[in-house]
């Protein structure tokens, strides 16, 4: 309900449900929208509920047939490439 209220004012909820990410991904997305896309301040207690919801239901599913090489196997120049 909170997600619907805060998010679908501007864009379709499909833009949420087609994405996957961890808590940081969703938080960064909210901050980016606030910084550049005119999203309003969300009260902290509501933001907490939204992040919990998105993290639980729209987290990374790791469903790929072949993940990237592990960070431990990467040249040092590229350890953050993943």
């Amino acid at each position: 309900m909170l997600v619907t209220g805060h998010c679908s004012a501007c864009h379709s909820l499909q833009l949420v449900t087609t994405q996957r990410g961890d808590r940081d991904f969703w938080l960064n997305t909210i901050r980016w929208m606030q910084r550049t896309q005119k999203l309003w301040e969300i009260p902290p207690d509501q933001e907490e509920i939204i992040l919990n919801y998105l993290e639980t239901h729209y987290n990374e599913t790791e469903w790929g047939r072949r993940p990237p090489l592990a960070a431990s196997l990467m040249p040092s120049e590229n350890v953050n490439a993943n």
Partner: protein
Amino acid sequence: MPWLPFNAHAMQGEAVKPDLRVLNDRPLNAETPAHLLNDATTPTRYLFVRNNGNPPVDTNPEEWQLRIEGESCVRPTTFSIDELKERFEIVSYDLQLECGGNGRSEFRPRASGNQWTTGAIGCPRWTGVRVKDVLDYCGVKEDAQYVGFLGADTHLSGDPNKVVISRGVPVEKAREVESLIAFELNGEPIPLLHGAPLRLVCGGWPGSVSGKWLTHLLIRDRVHDGPKMGGNSYRVPCAPVAPGTEVPDDQMCIIESMPVKSLITSPRSGMTVNGSQLDVSGQAWAGDLKVTSVHTSVDFGQTWQAAEVAAPRNRLAWQQWRARVHFPKPGYYEIWARATDELGRSQPMLIPGWNPKGYLNNAAHRTAVQSV
């Protein structure tokens, strides 16, 4: 081997295998980083460890006995290790041993079990007597189908009557000249973690058929039915299934030969290298079969170059390969290697057929280098 309490076995594991990556410390399971598998014959310290239970505490070779029996055994017989050595020809072979679950960590949905990446493989030298000679001495009835093993390892629950694992191979595999009842690994008595003082070695098949701490061989008149012969253990769907499918028991088939596979053992993944060319080497193996070619790619599989592949030291030994790769300009490269067996089957780039326990992942090995 001196008597050791179990926690000492785990510590001993760390002491004798300091370079391995421990996946589970009880029971001890540890894999070898790819760059440590560069030797033609795998040194004992670099051989992976796979345990289902706890190693036995008393492995005195002078008191050890091997009993051959079963419905299809004509003359059930008990041998000491000295008797085996006196009565039968002693032979040595380099035999590759790979855990059926090697590569399991890449399956999605995930499969439960040790999350092996690429390191549950090795090809050390084994010395022992041939299973076939011992079977012939004891007499194999016409109706014999399978040879099962029993070992002296103990169940994690502590229940002394619970068999940890009792698998085996069809009689034809047991009778191959390379199938051994082994007492030496790389010229030394087999260490505790690898099955002291006596173990079965049937190269090219999932490592679990090569029973450790061997006490019994059972010549069976049926497919052996010990623990870990049924259900999802060391079995895959008889027909391919979509990822995540629940497969009924009667549609699961026992894994036999392991599939064609290879490793890049030099350079170590993650290296920064100078210059536009690089010498690359590795190992390739194909279960019961020979590897006929290995190809490498540094452009994500758009082009492939043939590597030089050595002959195996003997049947069921892995084969060393080497290649010189060229980088057109500085940057990030992945070196991919793909082996092909004598039936023309090669390694997939993606993860092959999903199965409930995540066996038989022979997807091509990838390493990363930065060329500067």
